[in-house]
């Protein structure tokens, strides 16, 4: 456990700079977007009221009230979510390959550490999870600030206020990141971490068998996805929808645990016996 925590801390320290810059970029764009869109709206209102002499009621008839949703669905917001997601995906590969690439082959030192090699795997996996959840948590905290900023800029008469919780559920994509219940949260992120573990094991296949490993890894990845979602299509195609949705969710959780366990087991096996520096 101590070795795992040390390795996790080591990975977190390596991540910190990357994460800090990313957070600055993502939330900088979001705040800029909030200001630009809110100011754009207020200047249009001012234009109609001052230059064209429309009353408040007439302006509301033209535009309606502005809500924070208009910012949430804008490119400033969605674009940053995309940037964050892409960065996490990029880091999933970077966290392994940077140990092999560069002047000194760091992987050699890492694997020579007097600890069980599974700790290396688990520390990297935990780092990706923490990185993702940090974005998710910071978004909640910063959204509060962004909503406040919006309320400072747009006059009360022309806006309809949303809570953080409502703002986070303005699209299906956001609903996936911030589900209603904690149980759904665990399912969504549990599936996410399983998929990351599958990618990790794919990377380890490639690092173990090189070009041949890419094909083995692809085969393994496809098989894992098939097993993960097997309760749904087996029920649909072979069992004529015998199971109820709640039963399927429980089976999906079981499949998730099996795929995650297999990925970690295989990853450990490859790290221990087959990995090449």
């Amino acid at each position, binding site marked *: 456990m101590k070795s795992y925590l040390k390795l996790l801390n080591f990975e977190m320290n390596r991540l910190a700079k990357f994460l800090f810059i990313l957070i600055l970029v993502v939330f900088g764009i979001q705040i800029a977007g909030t200001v630009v869109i809110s100011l754009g709206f207020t200047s249009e209102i001012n234009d109609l009221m001052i230059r064209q002499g429309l009353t408040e009621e007439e302006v509301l008839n033209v535009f309606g009230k502005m809500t924070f949703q208009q910012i949430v669905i804008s490119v400033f917001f969605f674009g940053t979510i995309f940037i964050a997601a892409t960065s996490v995906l990029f880091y999933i590969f970077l966290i392994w390959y940077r140990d092999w690439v560069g002047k000194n082959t760091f992987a050699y030192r890492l694997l020579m550490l007097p600890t069980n090699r599974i700790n290396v795997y688990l520390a990297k996996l935990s780092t990706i999870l923490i990185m993702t959840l940090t974005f998710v948590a910071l978004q909640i905290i910063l959204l509060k600030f962004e909503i406040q900023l919006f309320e400072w800029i747009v006059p009360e008469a022309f806006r309809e206020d949303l809570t953080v919780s409502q703002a986070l559920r303005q699209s299906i994509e956001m609903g996936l990141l911030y589900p209603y219940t904690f149980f*759904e949260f665990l399912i969504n992120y549990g599936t996410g971490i399983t998929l990351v573990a599958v990618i990790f094991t794919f990377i380890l296949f490639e690092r173990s068998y090189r070009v041949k490993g890419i094909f083995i890894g692809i085969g393994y990845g496809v098989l894992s996805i098939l097993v993960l979602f097997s309760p749904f299509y087996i029920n649909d195609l072979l069992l004529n929808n015998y199971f109820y949705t709640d039963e399927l969710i429980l089976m999906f959780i079981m499949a998730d645990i099996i795929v995650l366990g297999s990925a970690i087991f295989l990853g450990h096996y490859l790290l221990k016996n087959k990995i090449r520096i």
Partner: protein
Amino acid sequence: MKKYWKSITIILITVLGIGTFYIQSYISALSLPDFKIETVEGDETFIENIVLVSEYVTDAENVDEYGYGYGQILYLTEDNTIYRNQLSLINEMKGIPETRERFLRDEYSSFFRGINMWNESIYEDEQYLVSADIVYNYYRGLSEGVKVKYLNKENGQTESIDYPLSSNNHLIIDDIQVNGDTILVFAKQWTFREDGHAKEAAYLYKFDMNTNELITTEELYVVEAEPDQYVDISILHDSKSWSPNDYVVYRSIMQRDEAVQEYDVEDEFGDGERVQLEDNRLFAYEVATGEMKEVNLPESLRDRFVNYFDGSNLYYVTGDVDELKLAVYSLKEDKIINELEIEYTKYDNARMPGYYMLTVDDGYVYFHETLVTDEGTSFLQVIDTTTGEIVYKGKIVPEKSDLQFEMFIMRTEFQY
């Protein structure tokens, strides 16, 4: 410890951010108020089966502070308030407690395996539970057969009947009824034309529960359109699609093409009555006798659309905007048997179109104002359509009397 500060900070932000968010959502959900239907007069057994699907809002002008969009969806029964967002995911997927779906899931969970229990093709009476489905070939785009499954509640036996279809193109099941030992499956078949439906036919498949075989197929009614005509046969749905009915009623309409667009546009706004149709007739099939007759409506109701149907009577909303009159037409007696005038509270609220909602079942009207406020002027009334007497009247109120709120009742459902 010093060298761990970055990790500890990141993990703390993560745990506190997400933890606070979900704890806050949980506390908000728990703080939602309970409601009850407080009996003013009458027999409470009339509402033991009722579920009022509603939306609770704290302030109709603004969004609420809890979670979902504008309000919280709640299911109000005689003695229970169930908020959707208080349910666990698994509980919600089983079906909202105390609703029809959940009732079926709990009572007949093995019967409904492999069956879509949310469709219209389910029948239930004291002795039988029946479901029927079309076996559809998605590759060929054709209906290939009818699959009937039924449970005899007395002996607990489940039987299945598979009947292959030979030449049907497209078939949908409209209704199921049982007459003695015979299962009646009402289905509609149509053939397409580029500009609409060319031919529509109402079919009746009769299955014998003793032999589990098809007895006959009857063509109840057929309409064929000329090239510039639009035709449609549709069944009148009642508020309890699964219940035994005395009659199954079809509406047949025919319209010239140039008016089709007008009909569709008008219909989209739920105001089909204004369109002059070339032909607009009702046909009633009597389940007990197997006879089909054209409904001979009086002049005052002819060409109007039926507002409600309960399997025996047709209900038409008449009267001016500010008064609610309900003409009850008996299919058995072929005449208007009653005209009710229902008193209700009229709110000046623009959020919901219409001020009241009503549902009919088995000769009773279940009526309530759409809007419920803290003024305590919203009632659930059950009215006997034969006598016009109010057999139950209850007030919809919060458990905590000082609560300021607005609630919109979206629909009335029956559990069984």
